[in-house]
């Protein structure tokens, strides 16, 4: 049995760590390329959102790379819109095309039921071990997110930007290899040590902005065309509102984290929106209002997918927020038709606007 995962940016490394802890063999997912999206576009319903198309393509790539089981995340968070659809849809479509595979879903159910599912692939798994494995996965996810933020916030200061990309690569490698919590801590220390060797100019004053939007576009660098990198290269400090680990903490009911820690977002969002429409929409609004009230950011970039209803509604709310707080807003709609020049021109102009 060979297990693989779709990318979701760098999050797959955490899933890989979890699956390895269960004692299963894993296959690294191949890089997303144009072929991935082409396959996805060809075989998915025309009006499906871009993430669906990407993920459908990715599943095919995984199966071609030799995997026979796909590990994916389900959701039990109330606002999840289509994450469950990411499996059932592609599985049906791929089944019709003659691809056969098994799946393991993480999340979406009570722990007891999940344990039953996981026992099928890893016999003799106890509840205690299962909880530990999940906790390890989430902690690893935290480390990955820490690294992403760390590099993103170093990049505007760095003199040689290429060094930051190298740091990201080696950092991910170190985290990938660390299979216990002490090793993760060691990896973090090593990354910090490596970062100190990068020459940077701390007198620069990068402009802080918040990048909000839907889960896939924020996480997947291929889908957002490396927007965090581009912003960092022109002296912008990009913060993001969405973290996958939050989502697990909220919906997974694992460990000490519950829903309480996210109540503040509801409070801040209440002026604009009271109920969630889909994944992360209310949270994004809450986070944006909070950051703006604390005067932390000077601009908002909203990424969303063409044909994504919840984000289209959200784009209107963001317009109102931008007006109320008098900050510039850039809405970037994307679909599979998007060209690089299209997005670059808008980002460039937005940066010019911020710098004035």
């Amino acid at each position, binding site marked *: 049995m060979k297990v693989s995962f779709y990318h979701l940016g760098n999050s797959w490394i955490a899933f890989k760590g979890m699956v390895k802890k269960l004692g299963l063999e894993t296959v690294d997912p191949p890089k997303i390329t144009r072929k991935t999206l082409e396959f996805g576009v060809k075989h998915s319903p025309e009006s499906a959102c871009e993430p669906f198309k990407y993920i459908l393509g990715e599943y095919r790539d995984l199966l071609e790379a030799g995997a026979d089981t796909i590990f994916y995340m389900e959701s039990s968070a109330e606002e999840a819109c289509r994450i469950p659809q990411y499996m059932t849809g592609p599985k049906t479509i791929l089944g019709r095309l003659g691809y056969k595979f098994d799946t393991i879903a993480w999340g979406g159910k009570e722990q007891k039921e999940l344990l039953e599912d996981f026992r099928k692939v890893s016999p003799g798994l106890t509840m205690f071990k299962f909880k530990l494995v999940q906790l390890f996965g989430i902690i690893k996810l935290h480390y990955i997110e820490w690294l992403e933020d760390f590099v993103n916030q170093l990049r505007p200061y760095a003199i040689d930007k290429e060094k930051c990309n190298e740091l990201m690569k080696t950092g991910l490698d170190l985290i990938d290899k660390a299979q216990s919590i002490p090793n993760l801590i060691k990896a973090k220390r090593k990354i910090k040590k490596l970062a100190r060797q990068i020459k940077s100019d701390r007198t620069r004053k990068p402009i802080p902005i918040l990048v909000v939007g839907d889960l896939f576009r924020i996480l997947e660098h291929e889908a957002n065309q490396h927007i965090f990198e581009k912003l960092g290269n022109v002296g912008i400090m990009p913060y993001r509102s969405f973290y996958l680990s939050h989502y697990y903490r909220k919906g997974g009911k694992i460990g000490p984290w519950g829903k309480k820690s996210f109540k503040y977002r509801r409070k801040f969002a209440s002026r604009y929106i009271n109920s969630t429409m889909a994944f992360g929409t209310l949270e994004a609004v809450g986070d944006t209002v909070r950051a703006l009230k604390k005067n932390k950011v000077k601009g908002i970039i909203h990424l969303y997918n063409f044909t994504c209803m919840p984000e289209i509604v959200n784009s209107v709310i963001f*317009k109102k927020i931008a007006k109320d707080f008098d900050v510039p*807003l850039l809405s970037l709609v994307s679909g599979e038709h998007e060209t690089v*020049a299209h997005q670059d021109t808008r980002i*460039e*102009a937005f940066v*010019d606007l911020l710098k004035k």
Partner: protein
Amino acid sequence: MNRAYLGVDLGSVSCNIAVVDDKGVVYASYARVQGRPIETLQEEFKKIKKQLPNLSISGVCCTGSARFLVANIVGADVIKNEITSHATGTVHFVPDVRTILEIGGQDSKIILVKDGSVVDFAMNTVCAAGTGSFLDQQAVRLGLETEKFGDEALRSQKDVTIRGRCGIFAESDIINKQIMGHKREDIINGLCRALVRNYLNNVAKGKKIQEPVVLQGGVAANKGIKKAFEDILKMNIIVPQHYNVMGAIGAALIAKNNRIQETKFRGLDIAGKEFKVDSFECKDCPNRCEIVKLSEEDKHVAYLGSKCGKYE
């Protein structure tokens, strides 16, 4: 000798060139690209050389959607996006401008300006209905020259509603109205109004349009569009003198403001040289990037279009 600066705006439809010196605009030209961007640029350079024989350029800025290609050919000092260039140009001519409506060949944008600097902007997102190339197409279909399109609209007395939400739907609606026996000028007027409505609902959605309003870009030549804007917004619309080369003028002004010490400009003589653009598919990874190879006579100049940065 005056210090002169060159601005080049190569877009989807037109190639605009402007020369600016300390006194103001010395030269401005608008030419249609018709699918041959590099040749058009060279022809334009020849014209400048003829008109201004002892011109010496001390800075170049490129803008427009083909700015990276042009920058490699002419040796640009600055590369700027269209929005900043247009705003810079317009502020130079109309210093108190608040709203810039720009409709070009493939894109349309609205730029809000306050005290001479951009405060907000929006560009058309996924649809190019209502831009210059669509009007071009319709003019050909109705058997008119693009330049006369607007005058025809002004003759109309009636208001025919055309659905302008989408280029394809608009076209079928025009055909429908034609079959129903409406006059040509009424249909054209209706089309102009539909495009303006589409622009205001789509691009300018939620933006506060304040006077003075400037309309520019190639489409500003169309008097029907200007009238439709005035009717719908109930505001006075200014169409500046250099409405169609504003991007190039803005670019030249940006070059001027950048205080370039030594220009990288390769001279107007590049008009006589032969540029070859070759494209091939890189087969090293499944991304299959289309790489554009630009060479001057037999010398290699630049590669464009790689995703991974291998060809830089």
